[in-house]
């Protein structure tokens, strides 16, 4: 049942992506992307609910679950921010990332087929995992907004203004504002996750992933500090948001 939900969520994200791309190619607005992504979110919730029941705890125990939780978080933040701030095409740019994350989770071996039930789930452990993955959702969406800015910036610089993509992309300033807000949100959630990480029981004095989380936190905090006090060009901020998200994801995947 959990895999069926995940498969449906992945297909819906793919439909949202392809439909959005067709609309962009035609030079029209993709009004249906939000609907596809809402449907994908419901399927993700279904998957997480089934896995949560099986685990008897927050379903963040294997890599597959983490990837789906991350995709859910990304979709949730997109649905909260995209339509509310009228950031057109955010869904079209988010859908492929959701699709990739969930497709990776579907690879055999990523999801434990018969997950063991946790007998004594620790509240700090669950809170740490959930807030950390939520933070990554916000930071992933910041990366998506960063890519959108880089595309728009290049088109504006090179005077390539004829495409449907250019017409439908939101203004550069609004993309940068959303990007910065998402970075603040992601960093705040990551702070909570790290605090909870210190409070949860450890077998060793310091988990390596907690050290990496702190390094990631320092990186994002430094980026926001530079942006706030010194200022940063839109291109550098966007590149940093994209690069830092990819780097931290790769590091976490390796440990």
């Amino acid at each position, binding site marked *: 049942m959990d895999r069926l939900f995940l498969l449906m969520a992945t297909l819906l994200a793919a439909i949202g992506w392809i439909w959005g791309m067709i609309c962009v190619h035609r030079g029209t607005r993709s009004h249906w992307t939000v609907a596809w992504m809402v449907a994908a979110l419901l399927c993700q919730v279904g998957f997480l609910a089934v896995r949560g029941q099986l685990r008897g705890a927050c379903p963040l125990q294997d890599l597959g679950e983490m990837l789906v939780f991350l995709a859910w978080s990304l979709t949730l933040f997109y649905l909260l921010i995209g339509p509310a701030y009228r950031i057109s095409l955010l869904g079209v740019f988010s859908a492929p990332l959701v699709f990739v994350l969930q497709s990776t989770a579907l690879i055999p071996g990523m999801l434990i087929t018969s997950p063991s039930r946790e007998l004594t789930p620790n509240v700090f452990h669950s809170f740490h995992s959930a807030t950390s993955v939520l933070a990554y959702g916000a930071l992933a969406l910041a990366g998506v907004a960063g890519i959108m800015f880089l595309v*728009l910036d290049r088109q504006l*610089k090179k005077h390539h203004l004829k495409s449907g993509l*250019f*017409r439908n992309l939101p203004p550069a300033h*609004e993309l940068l504002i959303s990007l910065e807000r998402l970075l603040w949100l992601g960093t705040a959630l990551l702070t909570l996750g790290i605090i909870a990480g210190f409070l949860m029981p450890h077998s060793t004095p310091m988990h390596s992933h907690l050290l990496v989380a702190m390094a990631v936190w320092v990186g994002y905090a430094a980026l926001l500090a530079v942006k706030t006090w010194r*200022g*940063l060009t*839109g291109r550098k901020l966007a590149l940093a948001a994209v690069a830092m998200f990819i780097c931290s994801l790769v590091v976490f995947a390796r440990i």
Partner: protein
Amino acid sequence: MELLCLGLNHRTAPVEVRERFAVSTPQLGAAASDLATLANATEGVVISTCNRTEFYLAAADAQQALVLLEARLTLRESLDAGASSHFYRKVKSEAAAHLCRVVSGLDSMMLGETEIFGQVKQAYQAALAAGTTGSVLNRLFQRAFGVGKKVRTETSIQEGSTSVGNVAVDLAEKIFGHLKDSEVMILGAGEMSRITAQSLVSRGARSIFVSNRSFDRAETLAREMGGEAVRFDDWQRALERVDVVISSTGSPHALVHRADVEKVRRARKFRPLFFIDIAVPRDINPDVAEIEEVYLYDIDALEQLASEGRSRRQLQIEHCERIINAELAKLNLPGT
């Protein structure tokens, strides 16, 4: 009842003739009432914009009504006999198709412009309020609005910018979003920069700084636009706070160099800066565009974009005409 239209526009009459027939918006109802008193006419609507004045009538005999109307107008405005060459005359289905073309912006000086839709609506409402419309003109105008909407939604006749000023404003909005927080600086108090700055202000730009070699001219333009004059030696300091710079001085060499912008980057906290260079020779050195947060467009780049916009609209005309003809064929309007 037969439908007819008598009119003159920017293509058929020079401004000195058009202005004699212009009717101010508050007078549209009275003008329509006057029109409906014409022998054998029962309904009338007068449309008047800066580029056209048109009289729509429903009369028992269209040809006779046309002659009477033309004679009345010529007499009223004391025009010579040759003045009739400025008028175009449309009857029955031709008049209906013409109104649809007008409402859709196909007959406008700026092809596809949207303002005309509201202007025709205003003229119709004035006539409706004056009680000079009946079954023929009510149906004609309501259907024409429907056709106009269909043309605008199903084609790209109104998409893209067609003038240098509009292209610049659209680009500014693509960079800054709402312009209400944007500040604009004009370098050189020329006509083009004034028009472009006015477009930015009309879309909400917060404040305008005007810098010109002659400070008096800068002050005059600043006063006219509700802005602030800046001494020409001080424009670099103003660069720290503005978001858009429109430059059109008569300088024989570039005024703004990369070093000028580099100097203020930190103070600006690396915010985006949009340069619109409409001067020839160019005021802004092209290497300014190499700065990351700078977007530079010169007159050629803007004109090319405007020309592409115009070409795109031209390509849509046939499609629009097809929609109008198909819709009119379906409607079977009275008087046509």
